[in-house]
């Protein structure tokens, strides 16, 4: 039972991590209609900038503003220099441009930081584990990630449902043309949303530092999974992104944890393990295909 609870926590932790990335992506996607492949690069930039500052200054905490600032600045720069020119254009042009950006960012990081992954130290405060229940020992850092993720989700909920900007965002994701027609300064709104999305991606990147490898290409690894989240949740829906992230995190963790064991009941050991690993790799894609076949617009968008 404690093992099951631990796996659930693992799923939630993976889920909130995905949410930080998916929230920005779904807003940019839903409101501006831009497919931003470079979102993963911003995640990488957040990780590098934060880790570098943390290592140079010796303080993990100083890394946080550095990561946020670098990511938000990069995001705003991308919006201002590149994406702004592509709003009216085809999705395909956006794909090509942001694909170009991925190459540029990856190589620039390689030139600046070299090819070796960076070392990240863990702050003493968050190092170690706590016993949540008898027999359930869990790393503090992961609990902190869950807490930050849930706080961000709450903050976004308040921002979107209780503020004027949030109202515009909501309006923008349902009917872009209408917001524009009402004379709202859409440019400012766009830059703000893009910057906010980038900020969250940078935060995710920095928080991932101590548990993952900070290396070139870390963004693309998670980018596709994030797109899966966005599509399952429904494009433009923060609520959808939140629940889809959690579902995906838990399903993915659950498959990895329990599928080989279940298969071993009916098959020989090694084959069951290999098959189980194969199926759980496909798991999130299979889930997405099934969701889309039943609800073509995603889980949290009403089909019209």
């Amino acid at each position, binding site marked *: 039972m404690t093992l099951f609870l631990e796996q659930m926590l693992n799923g939630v932790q993976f889920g909130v991590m995905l949410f930080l990335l998916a929230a920005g992506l779904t807003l940019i996607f839903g409101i501006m209609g831009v497919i931003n492949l470079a979102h993963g690069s911003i995640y990488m930039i957040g990780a590098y900038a934060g880790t570098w500052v943390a290592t140079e200054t010796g303080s993990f905490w100083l890394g946080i503003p550095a990561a946020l600032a670098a990511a938000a600045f990069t995001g705003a720069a991308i919006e201002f220099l590149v994406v702004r020119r592509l709003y009216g254009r085809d999705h395909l042009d956006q794909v090509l441009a942001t694909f170009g950006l991925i190459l540029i960012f990856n190589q620039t990081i390689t030139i600046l930081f070299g*090819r070796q*992954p960076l070392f990240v130290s863990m702050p003493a405060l968050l190092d170690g584990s706590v016993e949540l229940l008898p027999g359930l020992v869990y790393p503090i850092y992961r609990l902190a990630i869950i807490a930050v993720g849930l706080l961000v989700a709450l903050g976004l909920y308040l921002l979107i449902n209780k503020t004027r900007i949030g109202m515009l965002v909501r309006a923008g994701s349902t009917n872009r043309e209408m917001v524009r027609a009402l004379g709202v300064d859409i440019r400012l709104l766009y830059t703000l949303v893009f910057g906010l999305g980038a900020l969250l991606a940078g935060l995710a990147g920095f928080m991932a530092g101590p548990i993952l490898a900070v290396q070139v290409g870390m963004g693309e690894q998670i980018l596709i999974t994030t797109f899966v989240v966005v599509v399952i949740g429904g494009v433009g829906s923060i609520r959808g992104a939140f629940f889809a992230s959690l579902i995906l995190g838990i399903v993915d963790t659950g498959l990895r944890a329990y599928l*080989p064991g279940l298969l071993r009941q009916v098959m020989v050991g090694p084959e069951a393990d290999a098959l189980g690993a194969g199926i759980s790799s496909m798991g999130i894609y299979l889930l997405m295909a099934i969701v889309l076949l039943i609800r073509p617009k995603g889980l949290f968008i009403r089909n019209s």
Partner: protein
Amino acid sequence: MNFRRMLLAASVSALAALPAFAAEPVKIGMITTLSGPAGYLGQDIRDGFMLALEEGKLGGVLVELVVEDDGLKPGQGKQIAERFLSENGIKLFTGIVFSNVAGATIPDIVDSGAFYVSPNAAPSNLAGKECNENYFVVSWQNDSLHESAGQNATNLGYKKAFVLAPNYQAGKDAIAGFKRYFKGEIAGEIYTRLDQTDFAAELAQVRAAKPDVVFQFHPGGLGITFLRQYEQSGLMKEIPMVVAEPSMDGVTLAAVGDAAIGLNVSSHWNSDFDNAANKKFMDAWNKTYNRPVTYYASQGYDAALAYASALKATRGNIDDADAFRDALRKADFESVRGKFAFGPNQHPVQNWYALKVEKGADGKPVLKTVGEVFKDHGDAYAADCKM
């Protein structure tokens, strides 16, 4: 900017200084992976190789090293090989890091009569049925890495092991290799994913199975992630770990830091080896590069030494392929790992050592050699090789 035609500054000046009879430099083509997360592997192979050049010469023969990035794409590697062969007239090749690039590229190279000395990848088919007289490996056969880890676990007296590796060919080979030499029982076996970023689910299973020891194979960034999470979950204190060198090279160690202390590693080379060739290599490395050394660099260096020995014996005449091949086969060079010889399939027969990660003099973790695992270990595929 690093240009491909790395006619090293040294060799340019050497050329200029020599009288008119100076021969054309012998070209060596290096196809390696320099971009993406695995870029540091190719970088170290290249830089290790270059350390062996003495004023632009290998074995007293002027050489020109031509380096190109395969981007970890088999098609790209093949294309580069073809251009090197047909346009640059290159006959000596080296550099490939990954088995999949090797599989697509090496058959073309050796089929056209050129030589290939592998500084890293050595897939099983090329060691067995598909072996070739122009194909040499100075690193190891892929399986040996994990066989040594299995033997190491047996030597350390562990009875119950939990094994983890990514669900791809090299991962399955790793687990098979480990099991071949591990005498205890397997408490559990998990295949992870190549694109996995979170191992919490697997670690929970490891903890539940309560094994004596964990064996895992996760190269590069994957390994850094795995080790960090293993340590953070508190498992490092409870269950010791054995790995083979791809999961714990110098760069991985620097990125993981103290989390790796106590780890048992098996390797064919370590930076603290006490022999003249290795001391020379380590001095040169530390003087030239300001970064941790990896075994990839040592293999690049040994590949250069192997070519140097043959170039010296043939006085730079590579047109007589038979003579050049015979000279290469003798492996007449001082390897940085000490004893070295080629087996019947031209793969190494060498010793394997047990290393342990300990706190070094400066407080940073280092890999320390603590014992021997195998003596004169070859590979199982040599039997299938008919040359």
